[in-house]
């Protein structure tokens, strides 16, 4: 418990420091003005969601081949944490878009595929809640989770493959793209803080899943008696 509080305090300090960098150190973007500051919440959340869903995909594959419960626990934990990060992306995106594009939402490839990704992982969690038997639940949701992950590369490459209302990439975007060095440093440090947040949430959620498995085990023991 003390360890978790210590980690949370360090993380809070990191986030406060990176917020200072984003608002005071990084320059104001010329075209959009101050509204571009939403970038420092929107983009790290998007990348963190990809990491979480990548972990979910890996854990699902490991479960299918090993049938070890720990991989199922990791998969569901990463899916739920990833869903929290995608929710932040879907909420901050329209708030940023409205003053810049004049609309809250448009059904372009990037936005639509991100919304589909959110729905897929909601479906993944719903599927789990509908299956009672632990082994069946783990296997079916692992297979569905592997399928759901196919949308992640589509979301990532959508702005490279198709013309979209969503801006072209500024990170790893090729010639002509890029960020001011102060923006890049600020972004990378914010992303490091968000990775810390991801690890903290994932760790807590994994412990929760392990506890849930203990409850199921104890209930089975009660039924046997």
């Amino acid at each position, binding site marked *: 418990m003390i360890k978790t509080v210590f980690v949370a305090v360090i993380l809070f300090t990191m986030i406060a420091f990176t917020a200072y960098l984003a608002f005071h150190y990084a320059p104001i973007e010329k075209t959009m003005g101050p509204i571009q500051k939403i970038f420092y919440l929107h983009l790290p959340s998007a990348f963190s969601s990809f990491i979480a869903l990548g972990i979910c995909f890996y854990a699902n594959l490991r479960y299918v081949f090993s049938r070890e419960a720990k991989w199922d626990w990791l998969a569901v934990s990463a899916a739920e944490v990833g869903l929290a990060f995608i929710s932040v992306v879907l909420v901050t995106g329209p708030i940023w878009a409205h003053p810049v594009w004049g609309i809250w939402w448009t059904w372009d490839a990037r936005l639509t595929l991100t919304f589909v990704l959110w729905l897929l992982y909601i479906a993944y969690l719903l599927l789990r809640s509908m299956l009672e038997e632990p082994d069946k639940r783990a296997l079916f949701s692992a297979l569905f989770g592997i399928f759901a992950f196919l949308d992640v590369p589509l979301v990532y490459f959508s702005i490279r493959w198709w013309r979209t209302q969503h801006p072209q990439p500024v990170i790893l975007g090729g010639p002509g793209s890029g960020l001011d060095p102060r923006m890049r440093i600020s972004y990378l440090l914010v992303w490091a803080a968000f990775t810390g947040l991801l690890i903290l949430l994932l760790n807590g959620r994994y412990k929760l899943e392990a*506890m849930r498995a203990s409850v199921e085990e104890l209930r089975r023991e009660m039924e046997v008696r």
Partner: protein
Amino acid sequence: MKNLDSILAAYLAGWAIFFVYYISVAQRMNALHKQIEQLKSSLSRGK
């Protein structure tokens, strides 16, 4: 600062999602912890 209301709204909403999620995990953990204690005491009484 121009669009300050939108910037504030985005940061408040974003951090609210993380905060609510963190609280929900903590609450579910507390509930499960209580269940584990109850089940363990029921099992030990049944011995």
